[in-house]
């Protein structure tokens, strides 16, 4: 779809002069205004735009917070309290940022599951998908380091526990894990030195994400968007111009999303966090029950389900890394689960497993919780390694529509349904 002809016409003499020297307005016009989008995109396709907005919002609010924050063990906790109490509108900007992290993950999980359901990872979108996995990984690192910055009890002990994951490498080569952990800490324990470097990296990584997002959008615009039928765009009537059709849908759902966002910011700012993080970090006392932020809980449950230190760490990272191989693990010729009567059920079982692992991750690692965490951890991996390859081969997909246009307008595709926009393709 990237090869569609440019329709940009500079309106003024200056725009024309500029266009001959740096055709950035042409690039923007062809990428985001007159870009052909499949005419059947549903609301799940608006989350890419929402995520871009949230990334920019996190960068803007983060830069503001960095103006008031002190990245030292002595002052960090108090400077965050100062932001909440004394800085003009600091309470609001800080809540935007803290709640924004959760909103980022809500949106990214919807975005990922959208991709899994409609087969958006399949050829020719493998690179696009892998870039997405990389973004997800860097996002997790950024969120983890950001959570350390208020230097409360959960910050401190979260950093201690997660950095100690690397000490499991002692099981492979004695001393290796310890050396890596001390290198991460800059000492023999988590201290203000650790906090300082986390602050530095927490400021850097969002810009790495931004760069990856640009590549992600580039790759998207080479392959073109997938759509609920999973069919390729074949003719011009399969598409509508991005502006105003896809754009207005993006804005509608962005506003719905922002209403939820604002609800949390103004009425439940601490609901998604943990009360213990309002106790200043104390290196001598661990809180009785350590849990990560909600968006890490499924992976935390996988970590604890494996009764071996190194094995748990490997499983946790494998749970993310396995996403990279999804384009090749799925053997089905059909992209969209809409036309996959058997796989569809496994998809929902997988989604349920992830939610269940999230719930189990928030519970203490004992008794029946561990049992169920193991069951769902097994299915998490089995879904990718067994279900995806085998169901793809055995299943008989439902009959696919011949084109996107036919899927929308019915066979023949000539009759315009009552109330539909008159001839959106006429342009």
């Amino acid at each position: 779809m990237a090869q569609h002809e440019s329709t940009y016409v500079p309106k003024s003499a200056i725009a024309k002069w500029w266009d001959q020297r740096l055709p950035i307005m042409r690039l923007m016009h062809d990428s985001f205004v007159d870009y052909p989008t499949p005419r059947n995109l549903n609301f799940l396709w608006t989350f890419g735009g929402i995520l871009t907005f949230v990334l920019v919002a996190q960068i803007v609010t983060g830069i503001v917070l960095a103006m008031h924050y002190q990245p030292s063990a002595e002052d960090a906790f108090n400077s965050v309290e100062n932001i909440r109490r004394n800085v003009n509108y600091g309470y609001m900007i800080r809540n935007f940022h803290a709640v924004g992290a959760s909103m980022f993950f809500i949106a990214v999980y919807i975005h990922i599951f959208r991709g899994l359901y409609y087969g958006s990872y399949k050829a020719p979108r493998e690179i696009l998908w892998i870039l997405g996995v990389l973004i997800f990984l860097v996002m997790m690192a950024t969120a983890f380091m950001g959570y350390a910055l208020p230097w409360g009890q959960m910050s401190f002990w979260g950093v201690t526990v997660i950095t100690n994951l690397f000490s499991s490498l002692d099981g492979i080569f004695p001393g290796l894990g310890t050396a890596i952990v001390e290198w991460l800490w800059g000492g023999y324990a988590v201290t203000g030195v650790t906090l300082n470097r986390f602050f530095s990296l927490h400021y850097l990584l969002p810009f790495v994400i931004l760069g990856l997002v640009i590549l992600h959008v580039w790759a998207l615009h080479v392959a073109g968007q997938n759509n609920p039928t999973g069919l390729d765009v074949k003719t011009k009537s399969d598409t509508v111009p991005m502006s105003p059709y896809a754009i207005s849908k993006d804005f509608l759902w962005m506003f719905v999303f922002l209403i939820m966002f604002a609800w949390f910011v103004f009425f439940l700012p601490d609901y998604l966090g943990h009360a213990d993080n309002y106790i200043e970090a104390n290196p001598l006392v661990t809180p009785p029950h350590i849990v990560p932020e909600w968006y890490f809980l499924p992976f935390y449950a996988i970590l604890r389900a494996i009764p071996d230190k190194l094995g748990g760490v490997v499983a946790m990272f494998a749970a993310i890394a396995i996403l990279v191989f999804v384009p090749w693990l799925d053997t089905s010729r059909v992209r969209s689960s809409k036309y996959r009567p058997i796989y569809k059920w496994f998809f929902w079982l997988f989604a349920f497993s992830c939610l269940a692992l999230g719930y189990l991750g928030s519970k203490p690692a004992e008794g029946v919780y561990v049992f169920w965490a193991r069951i769902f951890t097994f299915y998490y991996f089995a879904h990718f390694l067994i279900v995806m390859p085998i169901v793809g081969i055995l299943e008989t997909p439902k009959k696919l529509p011949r084109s996107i246009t036919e899927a929308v307008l019915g066979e023949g595709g000539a009759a315009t349904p009552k109330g539909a926009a008159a001839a959106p393709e006429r342009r």
Partner: protein
Amino acid sequence: MATDVEDPQRRDFLIIAGNAFAAVGAASLIWPFVQQMNPDAGAKALASIEVDLSPIQQGQAITVMWRGKPVFIRNRTPEEIEAAKKVPLNELVDEAARNENVEADARATDENRTLKGHENWLVMVGVCTHLGCIPKGQTLSDAKGDYGGWFCPCHGSHYDTAGRIRKGPAPRNLEVPTYEFVSDTKIKIG
């Protein structure tokens, strides 16, 4: 974007109203992001300080910190006061008093640079009115400039014994902040 031929105004109205609503929302969101850079409640809480003057002998000066800026407090000798009073106002670079405690249009006489009844005390923000350096003149060994008051080493501004600019690039007299005597030997600045 009227796609419904029968009722174009309704669609137009919705689009204009929706966009206007979004524009107002986005614009109002800018305000907190501008306002956050202004002095916060903590900085405002430091807006006034009290200073005990009793240890300062005649001819001595101290510098105190107020709102992050140095404030010069000098217990002037009779000779210094006399020298300042003798200066004809038309010789001054800046004829305005620059004293928060007198009327805004008051002239820069020596009396108007101080508080009534406490003419020996000169209290000024010790920031050069040129580009914000701190003038010399507070300690005995400092260069005091051609007029025996303060001398700014950055760009060579000379202030007299009433803190008035006499020579050099600075445009205004050193500023006298709002202050009052809360007792005979104590002042409250701010």
